[in-house]
């Protein structure tokens, strides 16, 4: 007679992920540079990792309600589009390229930027805005997406990201 073994139980490593902390600095405001941070943050919260997003400089467009839904992708100066640069600079090319990229993202079931931020924060992710950028752009906490927890200085960020793995985008 052969004995059938009890099935293994997956190790979800709750304790280990509890200790892990990730801070992502989002410094760019174009559509193609917003997504990497959002995708990584969303994956991290889904793994039970304490996740912080720090928005600075052009990254403010991601958390500014006036711009967050209209980020654009430009193929100008981006050799990875494999298109002649002279054509890419023609009027209308940016909105065309943006439209194409958004359509592709939608096809992959990737949410738009506002919905992505909603998902990340619902899952427990934290959003922070950089004080220097806020001052430079004359924006206060009330001008920003309401789920941004606070406008904080660079040293505040150093404190809160203590022990975290940091990704700069």
């Amino acid at each position, binding site marked *: 007679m052969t004995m*059938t*073994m*009890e*099935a*293994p*139980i*997956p*190790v*979800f490593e*709750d304790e280990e*992920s*509890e200790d892990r902390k990730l801070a992502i600095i989002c410094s760019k405001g174009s559509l193609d540079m917003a997504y990497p941070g959002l*995708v990584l943050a*969303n*994956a991290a919260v*889904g*793994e*039970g990792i304490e996740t912080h997003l720090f928005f600075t400089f052009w990254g403010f467009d991601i958390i500014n309600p006036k711009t967050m839904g209209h980020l654009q992708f430009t193929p100008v100066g981006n050799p990875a589009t494999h298109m002649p640069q002279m054509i890419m600079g023609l009027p209308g090319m940016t909105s065309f390229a943006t439209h194409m990229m958004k359509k592709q993202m939608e096809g*992959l*079931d*990737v*949410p738009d930027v506002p919905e992505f931020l*909603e*998902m990340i924060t*619902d*899952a*427990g992710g934290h959003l922070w805005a950089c004080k220097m950028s806020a001052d430079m752009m004359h924006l206060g906490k009330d001008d920003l997406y309401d789920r941004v927890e606070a406008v904080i200085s660079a040293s505040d960020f150093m404190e809160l990201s203590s022990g975290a793995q940091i990704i700069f985008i």
Partner: protein
Amino acid sequence: MSLTMIAGHEVHVDDEGFMTDYDEWNEELAKTLAANIGIELGERHMEAIRFLRDDFKTEGETATLRRVTTLGGIPTKELFQLFPKKPAKKMAYVAGLPKPAGCV
């Protein structure tokens, strides 16, 4: 993939313990799988699990959290309460499905 025992049933699982045969799963097994990872299944858990099962049947892959939210109607916040820390993987495990492959 190997043949193992879960709650007195013979089932196929992968190296980690995720079930690999869609038809070997039933709701009784789900209770044991959930208990294995410290979750007591309630009706709301089962709604998520049933959505995942039905969606897999038509789509051929495990739904991402976003799908469970947008199509299954269970908010992200609640999923993280029902299946703490790693809802996508934990739900898939209890539902007897592979881990979701999507990035979002």
